[in-house]
């Protein structure tokens, strides 16, 4: 009944305009958000034992370095000095820096004669990083003096080299990652005229670290007892970046003539660009919503102003502020919930479009359908509804107080 006198002067055109504006803004906002959430993992191939914010750098090796080193054994090698590391640590985008420690003794590995890969023999090198940077839960990622077993992490490329190069040409069986983990190798280290035998097993493969990693304690012990140098200068560093896609980081690396994994670089750069684009789209969506919101505020205030007289009359009859505000507030809630639900249609069309393309590219992680954007979208709408409800209440209060 009271809606009959309050609904006067509602302009369907204004309602439709507001509806379309908010729907458009909401679709863009939630679309950009869902695209970002869905696409981000593509740029961040996760590895269980190597965190995303770790970046490995080395000094760029030039042709002149090779020449100089051939001429003179004592020439400056492209290794990191204490000053380099200190300077890096001072940079605002760097949380911490860790060193790769290398071995200054000789290592060779051979497969057990009775194992599946018989007759394998190779000279090797080991490197180590502080254990806390190896994010493995393998209880056996440790080595103590007198332990005969040394765990190792290998680059995945090595397994491919073996499977598609070595094994095929030597007529040896191909092995899977799990299979390779079961194979034991014998290791011989030598230096300062001494030799010692160890055993190793591969506990993991990594796509990102191009080295053979063993526990740091083993490298340290080896250098002390067999090495030519007790603590050789590091050739590679791990940077723990605050944001691995930050442009300042790349500029620093370029300026200092350092190198890092190129694919990692392009991924990080693409992610940085993606972030910029998504941010712009989010801002556009937000601006559209804010414009639609102001249109809504103005339309409602105009509506209340036009119904000024009827609102005062209801106040005279004894209707309370709450009773008079409620129909308008319900109108806003209905309008926004319908808008929200309607905007899910273009949103899911958009999502299906890029999801099908991404599935073609081999990414199939689309389990939580839209759910990750529903919550922020709904939260956003709720805030807008609450603001409008408050605005309605305040305007009506003003009208009623004026009598």
């Amino acid at each position, binding site marked *: 009944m009271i809606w009959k*006198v309050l609904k006067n002067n509602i302009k369907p055109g204004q309602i439709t305009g507001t509806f379309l504006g908010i729907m458009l803004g909401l679709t863009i906002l939630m679309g950009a958000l869902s695209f970002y959430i869905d696409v981000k993992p593509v740029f961040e191939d996760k590895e269980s034992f190597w965190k995303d914010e770790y970046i490995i750098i080395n000094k760029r090796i030039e042709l002149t370095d090779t020449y100089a080193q051939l001429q003179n054994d004592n020439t400056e090698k492209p290794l990191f000095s204490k000053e380099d590391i200190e300077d890096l640590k001072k940079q605002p985008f760097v949380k911490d820096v860790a060193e790769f420690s290398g071995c200054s003794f000789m290592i060779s590995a051979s497969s057990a004669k009775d194992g599946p890969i018989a007759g394998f023999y190779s000279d090797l090198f080991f490197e180590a990083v502080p254990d806390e940077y190896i994010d493995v839960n393998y209880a056996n990622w440790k080595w103590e003096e007198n332990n005969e077993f040394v765990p190792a992490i290998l680059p995945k490329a090595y397994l491919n080299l073996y499977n598609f190069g070595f094994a095929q040409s030597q007529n040896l069986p191909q092995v899977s990652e799990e299979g390779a983990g079961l194979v034991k190798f014998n290791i011989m280290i030598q230096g300062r005229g001494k030799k010692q035998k160890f055993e190793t097993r591969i506990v993991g493969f990594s796509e990102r670290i191009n080295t053979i990693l063993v526990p740091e304690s083993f490298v340290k012990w080896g250098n002390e007892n067999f090495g030519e140098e007790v603590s050789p200068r590091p050739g590679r560093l791990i940077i723990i970046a605050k944001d691995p896609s930050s442009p300042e980081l790349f500029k620093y690396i370029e300026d200092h003539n350092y190198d890092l994994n190129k694919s990692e670089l392009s991924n990080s750069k693409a992610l940085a660009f993606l972030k910029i684009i998504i941010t712009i789209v989010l801002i556009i969506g937000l601006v559209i919503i804010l414009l639609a919101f102001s249109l809504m505020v103005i339309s409602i205030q105009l509506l209340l102003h036009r119904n000024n007289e009827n609102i005062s009359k209801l106040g*005279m*009859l*004894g*209707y*309370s*502020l709450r009773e008079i505000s409620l129909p308008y507030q319900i109108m806003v809630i209905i309008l926004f919930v319908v808008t929200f639900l309607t905007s899910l249609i273009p949103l899911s069309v958009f999502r299906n479009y890029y999801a099908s393309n991404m599935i073609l590219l081999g990414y199939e992680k689309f389990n939580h359908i839209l759910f990750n954007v529903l919550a922020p979208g709904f939260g956003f709408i709720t805030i807008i509804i609450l603001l409008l409800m408050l605005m309605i209440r305040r305007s009506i209060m003003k009208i009623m107080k004026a009598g």
Partner: protein
Amino acid sequence: MEIKFSGVIPAPIPEKDILQSEIWGRDITFNAGEKTLIYADSGKGKTTFVNIIFGNRKDFTGDLFINGKNSKNLSLNDYSALHKNVLSIVPQGLLLFPELTAIENINIKNRIQNYQTAERISEMMEILGISGFENRKAGRMSFGQRQRVAIVRALCQSFEYILLDEAFSHLDSTNTQIAWDLIREEAGKQNAGIILTSLNKEFEKEMKKLHV
């Protein structure tokens, strides 16, 4: 219900009118169940007087006490509660909804408390001579007819005081008497007070009469 004026002077009244007035600037109490006629020529502030009690006007100096409470301390919600079932009004401008029919205008008030039955409403309309106009839009009725719709509407709530602001101005003397009797009957049921404003002094004899 008790309405007490204590030195109330509305903002726009000229000083010489205040000196002649029996209300402005004085201490007057309207007691429960009392019937009072407020009479004055046009422009002396009869409607202002009604609106000050009803809470529509707050531009006055001095104090107004409603049931002992200073009106300055009454909130919007307090006034809503008063309007709902304590203070009824037939405003001079009537304030009907022109887009609603006569019966809708009455029901929009009556539904708040469901105070009168549908039968009593049609009976009251019958008494006032406006039955048959139930479904006519208020905007299409004459002022005299609308005045009677507003009277019925004002009786569709419980009240301790009813304010009648020139409520019979467009009724002939016979119809005025009928309407007055009906209002007195409804007020009597609740032992409610009546304040009637009018241009002339000639009305019921036993009423308390005040000159604005």
